[in-house]
């Protein structure tokens, strides 16, 4: 896919981001920019710090140094209240969906609405129904997360991430652990969202096929750096050994 947003303002800008755990340097100077309406895939091997990058963007972890600017606001130095205002504009789909297992599917989706909106009971129910319908889960609204499959949990997780009408979506391995058909369906949902709502997305994945099909641009991370950034054909054209190996093995 071609990048449709070349001249637009960056929504998420990351500069020289570093993060270490103990003696292990996970991110060692990451630079990335995601523009309005764009879907960026962050690729890399497992355990390379891709999920850490997402958690840094939403402020669940603090970087050692570097800057993360979201919609023109530097988030690394914000206090919790200011950070929460930014978080309301961001939806996060966790790798294991991370649904609250003591709540039903509908209560999970209603959770952010109950806390951050002033909708009446009826309006909230309607909104939850719409959100669940948009991911094809309206039939199962009364089930508990333990009673539905992994793919269905991801759909509900996506509905919950969309509850507050976010401007940015972060996906942590959205297709991992799913059968190819469900993975494709989740991918199509991501594309659909982009079309309908012009949401800016960052998709962390090691699945190059999903990345190629559902995203505009890719950034490949290795050894804590962004090795290459561009479209799939840019990656194919590269002469770098690691990139070639990654593409070959992934294929």
């Amino acid at each position, binding site marked *: 896919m071609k990048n449709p947003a070349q001249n637009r303002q960056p929504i998420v800008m990351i500069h020289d981001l570093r993060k270490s755990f103990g003696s292990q340097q996970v991110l060692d100077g990451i630079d990335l920019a995601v523009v309005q309406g764009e879907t960026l895939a962050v690729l890399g091997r497992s355990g390379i710090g891709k999920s850490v990058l997402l*958690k840094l963007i*939403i402020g*669940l972890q603090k970087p050692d140094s570097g800057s993360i600017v979201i919609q023109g606001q530097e988030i690394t130095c914000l206090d*919790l209240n200011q950070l*929460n*205002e930014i*978080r*309301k504009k*961001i939806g*996060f789909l*966790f*790798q*294991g969906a*991370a*649904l*609250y*297992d*003591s709540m039903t599917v509908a209560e999970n989706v209603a*959770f*952010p609405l109950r*806390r*951050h909106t002033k909708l009446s009971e009826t309006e909230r129910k309607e909104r939850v129904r719409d959100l669940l319908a948009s991911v094809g889960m309206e039939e199962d609204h009364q089930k508990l997360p333990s009673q539905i499959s992994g793919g269905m949990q991801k759909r509900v997780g996506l509905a*919950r991430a969309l*509850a*507050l009408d976010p401007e940015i979506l972060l996906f942590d391995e959205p297709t991992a652990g799913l059968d190819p058909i469900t993975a494709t369906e989740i991918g199509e949902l991501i594309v659909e969202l982009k079309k309908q709502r012009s949401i800016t997305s960052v998709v962390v994945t090691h699945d190059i096929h999903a990345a190629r099909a559902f995203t505009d641009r890719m950034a490949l991370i290795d050894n804590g750096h962004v090795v290459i950034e561009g479209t799939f054909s840019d990656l194919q054209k590269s002469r770098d050994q690691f990139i070639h190996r990654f593409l070959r093995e992934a294929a």
Partner: protein
Amino acid sequence: MVYFGVLLVAATISVGWLGPTHRPMKNYLAAFFEWFGELGMFCGRVAKTIFTPPFEFKEILRQMDIIGAKSFPLVAMAGAATGVVLSLQMHDALLRFGAKGMLPTVIIFSLIRETGPIITGVVVSGRVGAGIGAELGSMKVTEQIDAMEASAVNPYRFLAATRILACIAMLPLLTLAADAAGILAGWLASTLQDPVSLRLFIGRGFKTVDFSDFLPPTFKTAVFGFIIGAVSCFQGMSTEGGTEGVGRSATSSVVLSSLIIILADVVLVRFILVFFQ
């Protein structure tokens, strides 16, 4: 001072050994201070959310039901068993001194001043401590706590503060249940040996008991409630290492909270004796 000394040594060994399960057991003292420091910071974060809106009244009520109402049968049963045992043991002992008439007083005095509160504390720490430790632990390892934070909801407010407040509110009420069940069962056991009416039993038992025997020991269980809530939430929310870590959190929540309750009781009893008697 002696009490504090004994308490400090006991707490150092137990917490240093059991608290930070992921560290080597070499340095008890360092582990003790580290654990307590982290627990203190955790309590500080929770305290900040208790006094600022939004207040999660609905969730507090739900937790009061889970923690309080659902512990009621267990606590009442433990209290009743204690009442029976006290009655059987004391009947024999008092008979030797020719003071059989003192049996109701001894049972009631012992139950409301010490046995009821401590039995309640230990039984609830077993049921509720394990529950909170395991629930929050599994929420931590499955990223549910991260998800809550990512949706701009403070988990210290929604998960920890609600549970701690519910524990603080429910423990004194549960203690009343344990006391009542203990007194009833104590009467039942005593009337089976020497028939005595409940009215007479209670009348005799409460003759020498006044409010200062009853209120401070009952309200000290609010401190037990705080210990159970704070320790279990802290252990649960700092879980690391998958399902094994969840198991460790559940165990350490129970062991540490019941142990700290018993140790804190030493100080609380001394405090009550000095200030309320």
